[in-house]
């Protein structure tokens, strides 16, 4: 479908100057506000990780002090989880694309959208203050009574920052849910929605329902530290494990907030570059909802050795295996999408395929951890660190890169250098594996996590891991340069450079402020790629 080449200014051109950008209610510009902030936070968190990996090259703690090291891994976790991963795809790609994918002019509540960014920035001030004033050293998990009674670091400030940022998450979630319900294009029934929309919807449900529990938990810590109510203090009848239940009740669903959007991105990219519809569309859509729901029921698998009852452990282990099933279904469906396709390997597809491998490998680690008797040995070791980094970095960050590259022409109106893109993708893939595969081994060997110094027999694997981190860092730094360069010098992008389906490709690149010159209609299922095959055009009608 051809789109008129120039029928008016793009959203970039309408309203210039800092003030216009900072007071915009255009979802596309707000996506940029988030993109810039999140990129900054990613590199701050990455800097902490770099220092950690440098320290761990040698068994002795000779680069920084014990306290500094503890503050480094704490701030790495806090920033990466709450100031990068949770908002990443939803607040950047989601904000930009959701209205476009629904054929809408904007989200349901554009001013709420801008407010969510300001709340995010306001919250970040508290956490950044905590870092600059001397740091936090409780770990991103804030376990009590260490955090509520013993730590001398800036716990309340950091917790307040996360508390405030949680509101930003809830606002985004509300906005997305209402938008998906109320603003779909004519003819766009639920089972004609792209999977990216399904996953954003599932993610938003989790955001809205889980984040308040984090708010309650952080509130209790702050009340304990500042007002001494002693709710987690055993000498006053309190229960430290209560904190863990409350914390993980949020934080487990939070990891699904972090991965579901990535699964959505990959579900858009693979059909496009394989030129075939997504295999089992309905199964993938429903599996996304199942993951969101089941995600609320498994929090106790972080607590198998915490002192919770064995019975509880058994129940949580069972439910954790249940949640492996919908994820496995998705992996099989993505793989089979390739069959009888016409596959090309542009940068977004490379990232998407790497996601497939790394996410699966991380998922296997999850099976080990869900198996109770094995978890007793592996929990609190580097095995867990490897598992969640495979999913969060190998999975989520890779998917983020995939989406950024896939929709870059739409968002900026420019094409990036395909060669550099591929180099970056392969570099980050190789670097990632070299960094984190040794950590699976370290965990099995018994290397505990959050250790500043360690026994010498672990040194070999740490050296490998740190070497990998160097390569990984290069892989993540490269896009800064070639994507940034493309903003100014990249060739102009057509409306649909990848020949993809989806409403967002039916408008100009970059889109006008009001998104569509003529509002689109939806007449058939998504992923209408390739030759029509009996019984297989996207979703069943």
């Amino acid at each position, binding site marked *: 479908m051809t789109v008129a080449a120039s029928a008016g200014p793009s959203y970039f051109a309408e309203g210039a100057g800092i003030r216009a950008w900072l007071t915009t209610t255009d979802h596309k510009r707000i996506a940029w506000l988030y993109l810039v902030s999140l990129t900054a936070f990613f590199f701050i968190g990455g800097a902490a990780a770099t220092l950690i990996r440098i320290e761990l090259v040698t068994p002795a703690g000779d680069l920084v002090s014990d306290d500094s090291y503890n503050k480094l891994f704490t701030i790495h976790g806090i920033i990466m989880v709450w100031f990068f991963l949770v908002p990443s795809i939803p607040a950047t790609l989601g904000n930009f694309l959701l209205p476009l994918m629904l054929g809408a002019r904007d989200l349901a*509540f554009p001013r709420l959208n801008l407010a969510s960014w300001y709340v995010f920035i306001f919250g970040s001030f508290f956490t950044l203050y905590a870092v600059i004033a001397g740091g936090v050293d409780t770990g991103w998990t804030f376990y009590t009574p260490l955090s509520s009674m013993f730590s001398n670091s800036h716990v309340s400030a950091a917790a307040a920052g996360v508390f405030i940022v949680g509101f930003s998450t809830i606002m985004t979630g*509300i906005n997305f849910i209402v938008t998906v319900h*109320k603003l779909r294009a*004519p003819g766009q029934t639920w089972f004609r929605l792209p999977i990216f929309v399904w996953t954003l919807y599932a993610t938003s449900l989790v955001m809205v329902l889980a984040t308040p529990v984090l708010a*309650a938990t952080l509130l209790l810590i702050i009340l304990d530290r500042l007002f001494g109510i002693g*709710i987690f203090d055993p000498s*006053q009848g309190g229960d430290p494990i209560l904190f863990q239940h409350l914390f993980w009740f949020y934080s487990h669903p939070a990891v699904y907030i972090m991965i579901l959007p990535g699964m959505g991105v990959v579900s858009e990219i693979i059909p496009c570059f394989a030129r075939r519809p997504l295999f089992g569309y309905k199964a993938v859509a429903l599996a996304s909802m199942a993951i969101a729901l089941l995600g609320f029921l498994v929090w106790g698998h972080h607590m198998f050795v915490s002192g919770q009852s064995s019975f509880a452990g058994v129940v949580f282990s069972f439910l954790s295996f249940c949640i492996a099933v919908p994820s496995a279904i998705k992996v099989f469906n993505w793989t089979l999408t390739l069959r009888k396709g016409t596959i090309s390997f542009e940068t977004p597809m490379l990232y998407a395929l790497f996601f497939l491998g790394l996410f699966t490998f991380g998922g296997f680690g999850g099976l080990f951890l869900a198996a109770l008797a094995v978890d007793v040995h592996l929990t609190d070791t580097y095995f867990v660190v490897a598992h969640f980094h495979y999913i969060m970095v190998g999975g989520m960050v890779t998917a983020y890169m995939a989406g950024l590259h896939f929709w870059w022409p739409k968002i900026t109106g420019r094409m990036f250098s395909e060669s550099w893109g591929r180099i970056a993708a392969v570099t980050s893939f190789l670097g990632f594996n070299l960094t984190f595969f040794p950590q699976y081994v370290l965990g099995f060997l018994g290397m505990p996590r959050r250790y500043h110094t360690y026994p010498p027999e672990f040194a070999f694997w740490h050296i490998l891991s740190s070497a990998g981190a160097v390569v990984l860092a290069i892989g993540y730094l490269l896009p800064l340069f070639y994507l940034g360069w493309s903003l100014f010098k990249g060739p102009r992008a057509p409306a649909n450079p990848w020949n993809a389906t989806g409403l967002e490709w039916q408008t100009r690149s970059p889109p006008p402020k009001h998104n569509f010159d003529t509002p689109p209609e939806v007449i058939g299922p998504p992923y209408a790629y390739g030759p029509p095959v009996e019984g297989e055009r996207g979703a069943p009608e």
Partner: protein
Amino acid sequence: MSGESAHQGEGTGIQATGEFGVFIFLGSEALLFGGLILTYVVARLHHHEAFVGGSAELSLVTGTANTAILLTSSFAIALATIWGEEGKDNRARLALAVTAALGLLFLCVKAYEYYDEAQRHVLPVLGLPFDYSGPDPQHARLFFDAYLALTGTHGLHVLTGIGLVLTLTLGWKRLGRPAHWLKLGALYWHFIDVIWVFLFPILYMVR
């Protein structure tokens, strides 16, 4: 501005969209209070005797009075909503002012309650002395911790609600569709009321 983009597709209008959004927000608030209440319930199941004793220290009279005040304020804002829809702007604003006043009264009564409890040394906060003479003082303290956390969070929400109501009252003329915003604000106010209706019996009436 939030209206324009709601005119497409299967949207059923501005009103429905705004209300839908507020309901989802209230869902998240329900989880916030739900989490705290669940914590309280679990603690109470474990230490029943201590919680009975702790609850006896609270003033049932004051709690009942506060419940009445809050319920009346909900009635006031409901009246305001109806008048707002009928175009009776001045009456609506009057009812809103009454709502805010009642909310403020609720907070004053609560503050007095906290003061009285602090005097009787049953408010374990900010290092104040805690002399509890009933059974199982260690776990009774947990009751008062929970009481503080629950009523404190609720009180913050009442304060926010008062702010919202005052903004509506005073800024009525400057709003594009004041009756619409009033309806959304009323939803929030009713929700806070409902939360109190849960908190009151579980805190004050443990027997």
